[in-house]
């Protein structure tokens, strides 16, 4: 019964897809769902959101938040682009891999600082990561000299825009990371401790878990997945932008909450977050597809987000949980 719970968000996602399919069939006489092209576009957009949302899910389950991912993404994107650029136009695979490693390292540094602030100095995570948000942003802009760092590299471009077995590489990357995070949260001791931390810090602490180390690892993880988002960004657009992650932050947080997490921690799943990211990507795509005027799109996205959660809530009423 308990495993049924997630099914409601799935249901809602399917509902939206069904709505757009019917729209496409009746209004344009074509199909919405069964075009590889549509699916690819939606999945790439969802992947970019997911890469910020995956690590964040664990942080939120633990009862914290990480705003700095908005610029860990940009920091990684800029560092990667700078190294490839420095290596010249003919930089090979090795250089690109090296540049990616450096980008992840840059993001990881932000994560370490977050962990240090939250775990060791007891700074509330909202304010600590808002601080590193500013710092990462400034440092990324200083590194990039304020603008985007453009690159010309076919390997990077292939990584950002190519496919594996017909699946876009950003999707494959996000899928692998989602699986890894799902495994981590659902099937490992690390995951249990994350849930327990969100419910009652004292319970884990007294059970003999090194909560400080745990928190540092959480923020590191969150920064690294966001950093990988930055690598994808640079590769897709052949440009590293310090602002790469900022506009996506709110959608990433929304995906986590649509997926069933709560501000107070102790709740949330990776599958929920994945569905949340897809719900957002599908409506963003679908509303344009339907030709809804732009301002109405803002209204519609707002409505769908609320209804997504209401549908998720109604399971409690129907299955019959709390009074």
């Amino acid at each position, binding site marked *: 019964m308990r495993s049924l719970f997630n099914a409601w968000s799935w249901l809602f996602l399917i509902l939206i897809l069904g709505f757009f399919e019917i729209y496409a069939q009746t209004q344009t006489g074509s199909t919405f769902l069964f075009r590889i092209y549509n699916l690819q576009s939606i999945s790439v957009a969802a992947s970019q959101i997911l890469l910020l949302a995956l690590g964040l899910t664990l942080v939120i389950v633990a009862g914290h938040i990480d705003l700095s991912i908005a610029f860990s993404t940009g920091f990684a994107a800029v560092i990667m682009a700078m190294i490839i650029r420095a290596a010249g136009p003919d930089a090979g695979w090795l250089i690109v891999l090296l540049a990616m490693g450096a980008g992840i390292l840059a993001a990881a540094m932000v994560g370490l600082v977050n962990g240090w602030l939250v775990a060791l100095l007891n700074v509330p995570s909202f304010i600590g990561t808002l601080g590193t948000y500013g710092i990462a942003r400034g440092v990324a802009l200083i590194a990039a000299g304020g603008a985007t760092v453009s690159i010309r590299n076919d390997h990077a471009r292939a990584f950002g825009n190519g496919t594996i077995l017909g699946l876009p590489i950003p999707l494959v990357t996000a899928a692998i990371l989602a699986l890894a995070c799902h495994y981590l949260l659902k099937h490992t*001791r690390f995951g249990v401790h994350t849930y327990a931390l969100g419910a009652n810090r004292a319970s884990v602490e*007294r*059970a*003999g*878990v090194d909560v400080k180390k745990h928190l540092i690892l959480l923020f590191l993880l969150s920064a690294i997945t966001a950093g990988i988002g930055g690598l994808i960004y640079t590769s897709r657009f052949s440009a590293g932008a310090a602002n790469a992650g900022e506009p996506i932050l709110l959608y990433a947080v929304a995906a986590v909450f649509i997926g069933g997490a709560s501000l107070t921690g102790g709740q949330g799943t990776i599958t929920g977050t994945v569905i949340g990211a897809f719900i957002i990507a599908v409506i963003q795509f679908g509303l344009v597809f339907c030709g809804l005027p732009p301002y109405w799109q803002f209204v519609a996205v707002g409505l769908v987000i609320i209804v997504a959660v209401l549908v998720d809530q109604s399971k409690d009423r129907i299955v019959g949980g709390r009074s």
Partner: protein
Amino acid sequence: MSALLKIDGLKKRFGGNEAVSNVSFEVNAGECVVLAGDNGAGKSTVIKMISGVYQPTAGKVWMNGELLTGKTPEAVRSAGIETIYQDLALADNLDPGLNLYLGRERTRKVLGLPFLDRKTMREDAVEVMKSLGITVPDPTAPVREMSGGQRQAIAIARAIHWQAGLVIMDEPTAALGVPEQREVMALIERLKKKGVGIILISHNLPDIFAASDRIIVLARGIVAGERRPAETNDEEIVRMMMGATL
């Protein structure tokens, strides 16, 4: 024989309030020491200083000759001390099995990767709780949904499930039914027989007299006196609790 646990001059100050002053005592293997005292006397504060939750303002704690003071709850637990806290310290969103094993979860390998063995842990929890006389209707439910006594049983189960050298129990039977209280008293006897040291906090005088080898009475943060159960009676203990240092 040197003592299993040795406590020397423990003191804890909260802001301007000195909750515990100069508390010293020892616990030997196989011995049950009862910490008695009125509400707010400082009993829970003393045991939290032993288990590493609070750092003492002054004083030291040794286990088997090894200094524990300054160590984390983690290190204290690995030194062989299990604690049942008065507030239970359960993770409300997890099931009894995961609470039982919290910090020491069981895993099994699948394709070389460790996966949590939720089923085994849950079965173990059901079994340990059954040995205390408690059944839960749905062992997959989070402990948030359990009754007061069921929750306390999980906290007790967690402490006795491991081969500890010393078990600290802060009012372990407060929420338990009559038969379950008897089970816990029997359990204390069994643990003593195995050579486990026990520190018990209780407000129940019959239980105190039944279980204890020594009674240490705290009053307003200081040791008001120490008695063997055979040498004293209800009245005297209550008088000591009220602050009459004899």
